[in-house]
């Protein structure tokens, strides 16, 4: 069965430091990969997505992610974080099947940026 694993539930980091939030998935077919961000007291919004083509995807707010098919990973990175990046980040995987599709979300990683 398709599953998404976010290896870190919480990531504390100092402002202006780099950060990597890890995401691994299990799927035997082609998938579409997403990162969503949920700022405090707000709904989820799309950060970036991988559909096809270049494995390095750039998103909003300086974030990027790299799709690695052999390692079934889609890690999110930012070279220098800001206080305003404090939020919960969700990795999601969608795969198209004959009967429709399913989107599976990871458990989330809470990024806490300290001054």
């Amino acid at each position: 069965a398709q599953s998404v694993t976010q290896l870190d539930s919480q990531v504390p980091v100092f402002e202006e430091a780099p950060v990597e939030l890890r995401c691994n998935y299990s799927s035997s077919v082609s998938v579409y990969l997403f990162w969503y961000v949920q700022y405090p007291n707000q709904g989820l919004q799309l950060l970036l997505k991988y559909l096809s083509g270049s494995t390095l995807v750039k998103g909003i707010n300086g974030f990027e992610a790299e799709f690695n098919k052999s390692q079934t990973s889609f890690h999110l990175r930012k070279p220098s974080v800001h206080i305003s990046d404090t939020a919960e980040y969700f990795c999601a995987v969608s795969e198209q099947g004959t009967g429709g599709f399913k989107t599976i979300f990871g458990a989330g990683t809470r990024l806490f940026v300290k001054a």
Partner: protein
Amino acid sequence: GAGVSQSPSNKVTEKGKDVELRCDPISGHTALYWYRQSLGQGLEFLIYFQGNSAPDKSGLPSDRFSAERTGGSVSTLTIQRTQQEDSAVYLCASSQAGEAYNEQFFGPGTRLTVL
């Protein structure tokens, strides 16, 4: 409207009561999803509507949960005989079409507390 709206934003109820949660998707979006977000867990898929097709109810946790979508727009999630374990944030999302590669747009959620 400009985005997905949900009402109420907060709902406190007593165990055993029925509750109705409402979702207004973005105008023109044919696909609508309900998820449940519990503390420390990811988004749990509940149900998915796409146009006039039969909904995918595979994520509903029990027969106490049901949902309908009237006129291809507004959706109502109903929980009968609420239990304490139903306490969570219920999120609604919509997308332009029910394809795996489409971005989902999320509402702010309804926080349900069952006493």
